């Protein structure tokens, strides 16, 4: 790789990952305090909760929980933000991470490598001098212990040019520090899981508008999502999994009925509309003459499973207290009708993901 120039430039340009959370915001702020030019990169991974809330477009949703936090932080800091679509390459990494998953479906080490690698490319292309992140030594069990920080830097191919301003004093000096581009004395020495020091700095700098809880906006780190995600990986070849299938994991109630058949039952009108926008090839079930969830089917159910799917759909319809409910099953212009009792919850729980 061609390293950035080590000659003392007139203006130092730092390229940073800016999620919009408190840590990345503070990291950018630390460098702005030193008079550096800072450019923020905000990755859209397809797993951000705010983005999904927005796509659901619930009228009662607080707009603050749907806004792009990277743009908001960039505006507050007065720095330009480049929003980058992580795209298919990110999905490929998520489905097959070299360094494995954390406690949920979060491939945090590979995710950091992916983003920092991208930032390094951006730095080379746009004349940046180094890359920075808001990582804090010892804050996260998987990706922020000393060994992981070293590994990430090494695998990104920018050894020496990756600065973590919040924990810099606990880490060996980087080239930007050694070359005098950044004053090490003015960098911070934060470590560990307590966020007290970050809070104190946020008060000092008047930073109050950031998402809560920290790190809580990634579906990959969400327990419910992770269960569905790992079920998907277990039953589908990772190479065959498409982006839309990941989107569907965020919506509705999921039931695995057999190794080859899974259903998604919408929870409300918004989810009905959301699911109906997808051009899915399988069967769709709906209870007739009442408010009904849309149930979409992945895989080809046999007759017994169709009856089970109809009774699950009936269970979540407005006629769930009636002994028998008529449910329509549609696919490719064909319609079947099933008269079924709503399924009992004890039965349902066996299949729930």
């Amino acid at each position, binding site marked *: 790789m061609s390293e950035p120039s080590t000659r003392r430039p007139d203006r130092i340009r730092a390229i940073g990952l800016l999620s919009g959370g408190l840590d990345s915001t503070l990291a950018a702020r630390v460098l702005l305090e030193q008079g550096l030019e800072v*450019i*923020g990169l*905000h990755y*859209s991974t397809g797993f951000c909760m*705010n*983005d999904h809330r*927005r*796509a659901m*477009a619930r009228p009662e949703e607080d*707009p603050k929980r*749907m*806004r*792009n936090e990277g*743009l*908001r932080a*960039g*505006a507050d*800091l*007065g*720095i*330009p*933000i*480049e*929003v*980058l*679509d992580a795209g298919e390459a990110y999905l490929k990494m998520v489905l097959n991470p070299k360094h494995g998953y954390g406690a949920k479906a979060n491939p945090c080490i590979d995710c950091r490598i992916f983003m920092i690698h991208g930032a390094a490319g951006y730095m080379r292309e*746009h004349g940046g001098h180094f890359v920075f992140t808001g990582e804090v030594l010892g804050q996260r069990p998987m990706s922020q212990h000393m060994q992981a920080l070293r590994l990430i830097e090494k695998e990104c191919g920018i050894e020496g040019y990756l600065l973590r301003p919040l924990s810099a004093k606990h880490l060996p000096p980087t080239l930007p520090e050694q070359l005098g581009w950044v004053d090490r004395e003015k960098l911070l020495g934060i470590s560990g899981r307590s966020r007290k020091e970050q809070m104190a700095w946020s008060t000092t700098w008047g930073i109050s508008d950031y998402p809560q809880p920290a790190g809580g906006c990634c579906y990959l780190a969400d327990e419910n999502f992770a269960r569905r995600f790992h079920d998907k990986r277990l039953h589908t070849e990772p190479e065959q999994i498409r982006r839309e299938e990941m989107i569907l994991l965020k919506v509705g109630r999921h039931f695995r009925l057999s190794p080859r058949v899974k259903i998604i039952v919408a929870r409300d009108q918004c989810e009905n509309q959301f699911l109906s926008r997808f051009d899915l090839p399988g069967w769709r079930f709906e209870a007739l003459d009442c408010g009904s969830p849309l149930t979409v089917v992945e895989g080809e159910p046999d007759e017994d499973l169709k009856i089970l799917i109809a009774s699950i759909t009936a269970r979540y319809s407005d006629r769930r207290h009636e002994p028998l409910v008529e449910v329509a099953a549609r696919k490719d212009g064909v319609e079947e009708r099933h008269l079924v009792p709503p399924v009992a919850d004890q039965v349902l729980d066996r299949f729930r993901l």
Partner: protein
Amino acid sequence: MNAPVEADEVLDTVGLYCPVPIIKTAERIRKMEAGRTLAILSDDRVILIDLPAWCRSTGHEYLGYRQESAEYRLFVRKTRASARTR
């Protein structure tokens, strides 16, 4: 909010959700000359928060929006400060 009637260029992002409209806006603005105005059409109400934030961050001028039934028409003028926008 007062918004201009005419724009030099129009970008239709109806049906697209964040961050695609912002990515497309950035791409289009990059190709425009300073002083020209872009109208962005969107049906995503949160763009009313994100686009002004993007303008504050990049230095372009946010000129306001008009609501046209379920859609919004937002206006941005490219400024010279766009040295800050790649």
